[in-house]
């Protein structure tokens, strides 16, 4: 038999120093610890010192990797995805966006944003532009936070919702009703605004100074803490 012949000649190359430990030849079952505690011959001290050095190197290497990975899993996942927008500090692209019916009475049918004009943002106030879709889970988490911000600071800050990449407007309307969002929300037709703003996931939120330049872009659901921090920068004390 082929395999029998092979394993027979495979057993011979114990040519090498495995024969220093007598246990090897007799037993397959010698426990690893036996060899560790009882190296046997002279020169063994030296050998085991070398082995310990090798183990220390290994532990240092694995420890370094472990440190890196522990850092990786313990950091805030929002921070991971928050890569600075290239638009930070620059005027944001202009857009004109049709609003959902429910906002027509208070805000008109179409909202115009032309960052380059002297009046900058539509109301001359700082803005929070939030990109969302009805199918997006984190968008549901942040909707109440945005609504609360609008109710508290609506006189000083324009909160604006941009519904993008939604399959149909009925879902979007249901979302608006469910969270009873009173700040203006509009439709990003053909995802034009989203593309111009360079969004790569939903939700994303843009904090805009009164002169129409981008202060900060946040990826992932915004929290009250993030909004408070940005409001401090946006509003004159």
């Amino acid at each position: 038999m082929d395999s029998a012949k092979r394993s027979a000649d495979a057993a011979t190359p114990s040519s090498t120093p495995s024969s220093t430990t007598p246990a090897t030849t007799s037993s397959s079952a010698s426990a690893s610890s036996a060899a560790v505690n009882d190296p046997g011959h002279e020169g063994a001290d030296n050998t085991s010192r070398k082995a310990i050095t090798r183990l220390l190197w290994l532990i240092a290497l694995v420890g370094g990797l472990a440190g890196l990975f522990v850092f990786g899993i313990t950091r805030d996942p929002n921070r991971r995805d928050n890569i600075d927008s290239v638009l930070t500090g620059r005027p944001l692209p202009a857009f004109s966006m049709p609003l959902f019916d429910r906002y027509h009475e208070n805000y008109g049918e179409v909202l115009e944003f032309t960052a380059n004009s002297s009046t900058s943002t539509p109301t001359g106030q700082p803005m929070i532009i939030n990109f969302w879709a009805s199918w997006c889970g984190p968008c549901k988490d942040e909707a109440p936070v945005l609504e609360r911000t609008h109710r508290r600071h609506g006189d000083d800050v324009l909160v604006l919702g941009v519904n993008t990449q939604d399959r149909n407007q009925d879902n979007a309307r249901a979302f608006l009703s469910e969270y009873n969002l009173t700040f203006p929300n509009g439709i990003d037709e053909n995802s034009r605004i989203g593309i111009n703003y360079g969004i790569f996931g939903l939700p994303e939120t843009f904090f805009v100074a009164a002169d129409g330049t981008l202060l900060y872009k946040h990826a992932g659901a915004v929290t009250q803490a993030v909004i408070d921090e940005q409001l401090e920068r946006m509003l004159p004390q």
Partner: protein
Amino acid sequence: MDMSLSLSTLGTASLTLAMAVCVYAMVAGILGARRRDARLQTSARYAAVAVFMAMTTAVLTMQTALLTDDFSVQYVANTSRLASPTWVKVVTMWAALEGSILLWAWLASGYAALAAFVSPNNALRNWALVILNAVSAFFISVNALVANPFTLVPNPPLDGPGPNALLQNHWMMAVHPVLMYLGFVGLTVPFAFAMAALITKRPGSEWMQQTRAWSITGWGFLGIAKIAGGWWSYEVLGWGGYWAWDPVENVSFLPWLTATAFIHSVQVQERRRMLKAWNLLLIILTFALTILGTFIIRSGIVSSVHAFGDGPVGPYFLAFFLLITLGAFGLLAWRWDQVRDRGELDAIVSREGTFLLGNVLFLAMAFAVLLGTLFPLFVEAVSGDKVTVGAPFFNQVSLPIWLGLFALMGIGPLLPWRKANHQKLIHNLSWMVASAILAAVLAYIFGVRKVYPLWTVAFAAYNFASIALLLDAGVRPRMKATGRGFWPVLGQYAQESRRRFGSIIVHFSVIIMALGVAGSGGYRVDEQVRVDLGGTVALDGNYRLEVVDRFMEQTPARISAGVIVNVFNGNRQVATLRPRINAFGADQQPVPTPDVLYTAWQDIYLSVAGTVSPDQDFVVLRVVQSPLVAWIWVGAVIMGIGTVYCLLPKRRLVPEPARQTALAGS
């Protein structure tokens, strides 16, 4: 309370039982080995089978829950949906984390059970089973402790959201994960025997000869799985590419690289009794990288376009990875003096010399890819800055290494072991280099002007010449000796040297795929066009598109809107393509389904970009023309054939009539 046996209870019970028996199998195996108690060892082997049976029950329970839409089972409620077709329900088992782990654990326990009964009875088997059971125990415990798919939902919903739309979109998603896990699990077996060899201090060649078939099978599945994933990406994602150097792709590429190095370097140990420690190192590295990859993917520590999310299993996999690296590499470090080579390389220009160089290149590539993947994390940890490492880095590093590998792949198999005859080497090399130059000049004349595609064409010709020389060297002496013709002798040669012939087939497929990558990577044309209905677009090379109409389609599971496009080559209509956009269920983002005209020389790939609606008399299409991309998929099939050919059992050397006489006589 309802006292009838629910699927949730049955599933959890099976997992718990599997876990308990698996721990028993480990303990019995260790005690059996230490006390040299044959009865305990046998008991451990039967326990491995019992684990597999308990896991099979768990898998069947999950399948029953999915197929009967039992939304009281958490996993079904989270990932399945009434309207899904039956095949989607079946494969939904591995569409999300908990179910994937269940599949992995099931396959791992299956391989352990198989190894318990097909491995020859020797000193290694017992410890190898302990390791295999330990690995199974880890995966089962992930299911049993942190990601139980069978958790009971107290108030079951009436319907679920269904699996991720991208996964419902193509049948390949049913196959790709299974192939991947078969690869990972297959390579666990040589790892387990390597550990057994270290534990029992028998670091000779026994462990790796016993696991040769497992290694090649695992390696084969892993390679095919990677390409299957690339094909899925090509068919589904709509950007017309198949590989993007995304972290998720990179980390599953790493074990393939080290496994490829491993299946080459074990041959050096087999023939020359060298590289013992190196082979142990490679197989441990392969297994460790498998677990590291799973950790990186499932913990979401590196930003990736693949949405696997931040699962609860991240820390758990990290702990397992650290345990493996410390335990396995630690044992190797401790035993180093016993496994270190005493022999030395006779000459670098020899078969083993090229294998060793190839190994160095494979490892260099693995290191570079790992470094590039983890670099952003490292920078952030040190300085807090955000950086991204993209395709340009990976291409720049890996393309020269690939060229080096192609150079070695051509010359290595032609060299003898130990030391090459220089005259013969120069004779062979001159044929190969002449072919390379000729091919490169021809390619240049026909318009290939980019550096890497030119090099690839040159190395392809060099390797084809090498294969011709190899076959010539195998066939010509036999023709002389027997006086028979070329084809019968080639057939006989192929049957007698299955490993050699199989490796020639695999190397041939690698060249085919390299040409496909060079063509599609170097000469892809990607454009976005807006076409009115009834309008036409002219493409590169005599092709023309005519947008005929829009269409809508509805099945219980999806609603699709698409475009009907006729493709013309000259004045001849060659195909009608129907790229579309699909919506699966209410809560999911719509996904495109591109449509592709596959041809030998270039693919025409259409994907709907933007919306298709009744009140709009134009469509926006993404048109990608990729030369030679089909060669990659064909190459993968050839690679699979070559791998299987390597594994086919040797034909009996006694000819059939002689055997029958012998039998009749006895």
